């Protein structure tokens, strides 16, 4: 996809988020966002903003009969296919990734298991890594195959005091460099896009004062070993 196409689709992201674009535009934007982490991050953020519009309507109690109707309709549905989802043990247990080395190895294993490849329309492939962080923080890393760009999305983030935010660190060897502060996409949710991961060995996120750029001072909520490029 050309830069001109990318710019044209960026123009219509808000309309897509609002459901106000044509079906063709919406389909095109969705296809593009599947292979463009920058547009995906933007689209998800704009959709999170529309949730405010959904919450802004006067609240009206549904009639009690509606609950009975819905439950009756569900019982009339055909039984589930055999593929019942079973959770892996420990799914509900908060998992601590930082700082033990063993926990980092867990994250590496998750990263290895979580790589999925999406090849679309000549774009660089995008890998998705599921992230499990400290104290129930979860999320994912989207990274282009050529490591030109990455998006980190987290959820279940604890609340921070005013003036503090979640800061991304791009670690090369033992040196962390700020990748910028994450942008809120909803309660407990944030995302950040970063470019140039060349030579990066890990990504990490810490709570920091908004003025901080020198180095991490807070405890990491998530750390993602990147491994060697290849």
């Amino acid at each position, binding site marked *: 996809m050309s830069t001109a196409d990318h710019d044209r689709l960026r123009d219509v992201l808000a309309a897509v988020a609002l459901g106000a674009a044509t079906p063709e535009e919406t389909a095109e934007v969705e296809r593009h966002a599947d292979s463009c982490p920058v547009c995906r991050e933007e689209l998800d953020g704009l959709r999170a*903003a529309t*949730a405010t519009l959904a919450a802004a309507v006067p609240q009206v109690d549904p009639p009690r009969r509606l609950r009975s109707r819905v439950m009756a309709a569900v019982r009339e549905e055909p039984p589930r296919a055999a593929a019942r989802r079973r959770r892996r043990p420990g799914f*509900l247990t908060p998992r601590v990734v930082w700082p033990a080395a063993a926990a980092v190895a867990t994250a590496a294993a998750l990263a290895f298991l979580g790589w999925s490849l999406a090849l679309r329309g000549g774009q660089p492939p995008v890998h998705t890594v599921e992230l499990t962080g400290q104290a129930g923080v979860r999320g994912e890393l989207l990274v282009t195959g050529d490591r030109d760009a990455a998006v980190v999305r987290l959820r279940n983030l604890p609340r921070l005091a005013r003036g503090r935010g979640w800061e991304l660190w791009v670690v090369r060897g033992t040196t962390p460099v700020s990748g910028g502060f994450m942008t809120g996409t909803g309660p407990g949710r944030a995302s950040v896009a970063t470019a140039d991961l060349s030579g990066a060995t890990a990504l990490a996120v810490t709570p920091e004062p908004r003025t901080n750029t020198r180095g991490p001072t807070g405890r990491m909520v998530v750390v993602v070993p990147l491994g060697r490029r290849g």
Partner: protein
Amino acid sequence: MVSRAEDPRRLADEDLLALVAGGDERAFAVLYDRHARAAYSLAFRLLGDRQAAEDLTQDAFLAVWRMASSYSTARGSVRTWLLAIVHNRGIDRLRTAAAQVRRQEALEREELRAGAAPDAADVAIGRAEAEEVRSALGGLPAEQLQVLQLAYYGGFTHQEISSMLEVPLGTVKSRMHLGLTRIRRTLTASGVAEA
């Protein structure tokens, strides 16, 4: 492991949905009890008719039942997902021919009066959330709020809004983008992190 013996009311939405994907009616009922009011309220705001709002709410919850296994946490909370289903299906209905007259009436009654932010006192959600909504929408310039309301609540496309307001399509898209981006920034400023 989430067992069926566990009281589903103690579980988070995402965990309930995993049980729903396995056909657990109790978990589904808990999700209904948590979110039916928000879903019905949005449906009523979109369609302006109680019976139509009931039908839309039922459709949306049935969709949740059927599609529970396809839910991805990446795209937002369970509540956001449910409300997006209500909204998508709601605007599909708004766009049917029979709804055009009602839309026109609603439009004349309300949506073209630019800049009327919702009265937060009327928004009976949590106090913190109401404050967030008030600051997010109340701070928008009138012309941006108008375009967002026509699109989101009215179900009008950017092209329709361009025609009815007699402003260029590019201006409509730009107002949509500026308005949503400003809301997004307000969410960030109020704390990424309100659990």
